[in-house]
């Protein structure tokens, strides 16, 4: 690296008012007051999540379209309740965040060769871009519209095959495959 590549930033010069701090604190409080007054005046609004949700509101009032929202993944099942996934690794290859980990094995069923023995998605690493869904040759992985997923540990947020299949059961009524 050359010296010319280094960009030296100067700290902003503090005026006398800045050095006293209190005027700046009051200025900041002013911004808060402005927003409070806007809410009271009806031009701004606060959404009382989770009692109120954006998907329940009209889009023009600040709501959102759930149909296009990319939330947590699910693993789809076929008619016989087996995972549709054939463990081709297309999703994990396409994944830019490298958050899908698959272990393949010979399938116990006659009509297919391969199935995922393990299928883990690290929902914290995931950037919800939907590339896995696009890469999937058998529509086995889909992003649902669920966004309120929580966990107390990082380990809890690594969703395994059972959990992803359960999400399918829970969401299939609202979002048929």
């Amino acid at each position, binding site marked *: 690296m050359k010296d010319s590549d280094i960009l030296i930033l100067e700290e902003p010069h503090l005026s006398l008012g800045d050095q006293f701090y209190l005027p700046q604190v009051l200025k900041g409080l002013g911004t808060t007051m402005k927003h409070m007054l806007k809410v009271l005046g009806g031009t701004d609004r606060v959404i009382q999540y989770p009692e109120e949700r954006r998907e329940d509101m009209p889009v023009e009032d600040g709501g959102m379209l759930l149909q296009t929202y990319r939330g947590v993944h699910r693993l789809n099942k076929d008619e016989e309740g087996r995972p549709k996934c*054939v463990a081709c*690794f297309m999703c994990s290859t396409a994944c830019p965040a490298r958050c899908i980990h698959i272990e393949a094995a010979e399938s116990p069923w006659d009509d297919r060769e391969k199935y995922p023995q393990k299928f883990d998605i690290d929902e914290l690493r995931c950037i919800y871009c939907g590339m896995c869904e696009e890469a999937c040759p058998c529509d086995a992985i889909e992003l649902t519209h669920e966004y309120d997923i929580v966990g107390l540990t990082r380990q809890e947020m690594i969703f395994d095959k059972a959990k992803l299949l359960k999400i399918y059961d829970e969401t299939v009524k609202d979002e048929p495959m």
Partner: protein
Amino acid sequence: MPPEPLTATFYHLPPPKSFRTVCTLRTLVKSGTIPAIIPNLMPKITVDGKLVEAKDRQMILQACLDGNINLPYYCYHPGLSIVASCRICLVEVEGIPKLVPSCQTPVRDGMVVHTRGTKVIANQKQVMEYLLVNHPLDCPVCDQAGECFLQDYSYQFGRSQSRFEEDKAKKPKKDVGKNIVLYNDRCIMCTRCVRFTREVSGQCELYVDGRGHREEIDVFPGRPLDNQLSGNVADLCPVGALLDKDFLFKQRVWLLKQVPSISPVDAGGENIFLEQNEGVVWRVKPRYNPDVNTWWISDDTRYSYKVIQSKSRLTQAMRTQYGAQVETSYGKAIDDAVVGLKAATTESGAGSLYALLSPMMACEEAYLLAKAIRAIDPNALLVSGPAPTTGEDQVFKHYMTHKETFRIKAEKVPNAAGIRRVLGLLGGPTATWDEFTTATRDDIKNLKAGWIVGNYLSSWLPANLPAPLKKGFRVLQDILPSDFAGKADILLPSSCWAETDGTWENHAGKIQPYAAAVPVPEGVLRAGDVYYTMLNRPGLYNAQAIRQEMGKMFTSVQLPSDKEAAPAFDFVEL
């Protein structure tokens, strides 16, 4: 200047009267009786307007491939006979009305070849469509996907949709042998595998059953594909019909990274690629080397990688305290080992130490260990480790000509020759394993402490330990647990060949380098780094630097460049 081979010139001379004339001419030129006055005219051909220099009697396809012009091919393989059955390599040659199979047509000087003509491309499209008529669309579950010729060529000249409306023929999946499974419906009948079992492994297990659309590869009842070269048919197969059971469904090939390496199972020094993903070696593939293993490797080599990930690998440094082994840190273990060896030397004088240099070690590691031991005791005895042998080389022959095609060496260690070379390089007192075990020599009887290196892929010491190993202060560096590992005064878990750089010398005296493919397991220090610590050398083990130090035979040894290390069969964008 050495005389040029004469054979190349005969296209421009009147044909020799007899075979004897050729032989006489050649002998005379070789002996220098007559000068090679006739210039060596290599046949030159024009391919798509580009001048390509071919070798004498070479086929158009091979000349093109050598000249970096890529033609599609399935059934052609430089290591097998030519059948010209797949018909995708057909090209146009000026002066010949019909398309000719480039794999089977020898070059002629001045030949003009067109590989991108309308007729040629139409043929490629037709062949592709025909091959795909019954080919199942199971690329997502097929292990060959990613290195499949059919996939690549289909992408290039296939059509995206099939015009075939009827149901595809479903052929059964067959278990053809211990290591290989056959998916008959994916097969394109190039017969490379059949030719391989006849012409290289010579056992003729595979054959073509039926004709026309009923054609199938099969094995004879009761004679499964079971020989030391069986794994090669999976490499040979241009599609996903023959697959390795060991690798089946494990990984997708595009995730694997290839690292050039050498086979650890015998003295032949087969060139291989270790294919790893995220620090795990998933399979071994042959690396083309015309001087050593050509295109093939033995099955022992192919499955030798398993020891790298073996669950039983030693990973904890141990030291003996009051007669029992206790866990210790690696650094402490090395310090204790040096202290123990120094104590033995000061007590009994020079010549009381020995180092057992295993033929599984790299030459560089052996050199460093010998240096480190000799730094403590300048008269330390260097012993070359046991080199187990199966007695006789396993030789494979062509099924008809009985010409030798492949040889698996009887000596089941990769670097016995290299260790001998290092011992010769260093001089001083040395002993062979036999001399060491019989312990009749006085200097062997007087040994007090030693550094023993194992690193064998399976158990290596006899149940009844040789006398010098039973007594004194013993430091053991090994990768797998054994009785002896439980008794050693200091136990240092070691790195195996896939985890360090180094060189091995094969039985023919060829010094071949290999590269580290994966990191060492947790709790293990690379052997080279252990010796660096003992010698107080700065930095980390650097095989290239050690080779420079070791002198003339080793300085020129270098890992193959990416281009040289290209796989024997790599798909190149046309």
